[in-house]
């Protein structure tokens, strides 16, 4: 029976290596967070927030820095699921559900298909050295400016009002009906445009030739 089970050497080496690194990195962080939680430095929701934030930030770094494009896409999945957890912490269950469905289910699958169809793994995917430090500099300056500005501001008292899940549909179709229609038209146009754009280029002249032939036969 056991010879039918895959040996560890038959696992994807990247999965084993990545899992080992993640476990080595995650264990001390988890221990520190648990210690802070049990010594009442941080509360329960903050504990969950820091866990989700670690997942989000490390997944985002992986999605931006990894050389293997499929691994980058999988890191993007981790980030988006962590963002859904952040939405749950902000007590907006519907947005979290939509996030998991649309991003985890649709967008990432589309991205993976496109990555496979364009042979992206064979391309040099990371830019040359002249642009990378510049990009890092700009992004670091922008992020630190944002953080400094928002830590400096006064945000007032949190009200923590929450729209109940059952009221969501009523309110969005009663108070925001025009934007809903606009988004519907936008999605329709995008679908049509993607369909027309993705057709093979040689189909259009052939159809035109057939139409001309039909016109000649009729006349």
């Amino acid at each position, binding site marked *: 029976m056991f010879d039918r089970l895959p040996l560890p050497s038959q696992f994807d080496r990247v999965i084993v290596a990545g899992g080992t690194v993640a476990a080595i990195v995650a264990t001390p962080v988890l221990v520190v967070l648990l210690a802070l939680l049990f010594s009442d430095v941080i509360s329960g*929701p*903050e504990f969950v927030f820091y866990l989700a934030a670690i997942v989000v*930030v490390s997944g*985002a*770094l992986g999605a*931006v820095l990894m050389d293997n494009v499929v691994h*980058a896409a999988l890191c*993007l999945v981790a980030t*988006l699921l962590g963002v859904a957890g*952040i*939405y749950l912490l*902000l*007590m*907006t269950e*519907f*947005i979290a559900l939509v*996030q998991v469905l*649309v*991003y985890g289910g649709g*967008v990432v699958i*589309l*991205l993976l*298909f*496109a990555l496979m*169809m*364009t042979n*992206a793994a064979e*391309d040099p*995917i*990371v*830019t040359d050295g002249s*642009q*990378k430090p*510049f*990009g*890092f500099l*700009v*992004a670091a300056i*922008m*992020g630190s400016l*944002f*953080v400094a500005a928002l830590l400096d501001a006064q*945000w007032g008292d*949190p009200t*923590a*009002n*929450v*729209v109940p899940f059952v009221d969501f549909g009523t309110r969005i179709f009663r*108070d*925001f009906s025009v934007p809903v229609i606009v*988004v519907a038209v*936008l*999605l329709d146009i*995008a*679908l049509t*445009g*993607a369909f027309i*754009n*993705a057709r093979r*280029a040689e189909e259009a002249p052939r159809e035109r030739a057939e139409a001309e032939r039909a016109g000649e036969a009729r006349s």
Partner: protein
Amino acid sequence: MIPIENFLVLSAILFAIGFYGVLARRNAILILMAVELMLAGVSINFIAFATYLDADAFSGLVFALFVIAVAAAEVGLALGVVLRLFRERRTANVDEADSLKW
């Protein structure tokens, strides 16, 4: 209650990482993935403001929902363009698609 600054700092970090990805990557699909990161940061900002500071607590949610819808449309359309580009030019790198440049 988690302070609102936690969410805002997280969204700023996410936005900056996505911005770096947009600047540093060359493959169009990876640039799209970095744009998704930036959009996720913006959505966190919207929802944090809606939950913490808006007495009505609904406009931000609608914004976040529409950001998701527009991002899905954008990805579908842009991937069609990238596949078309790959079929015509055998590349998906944005700096090799320069026939409109001069």
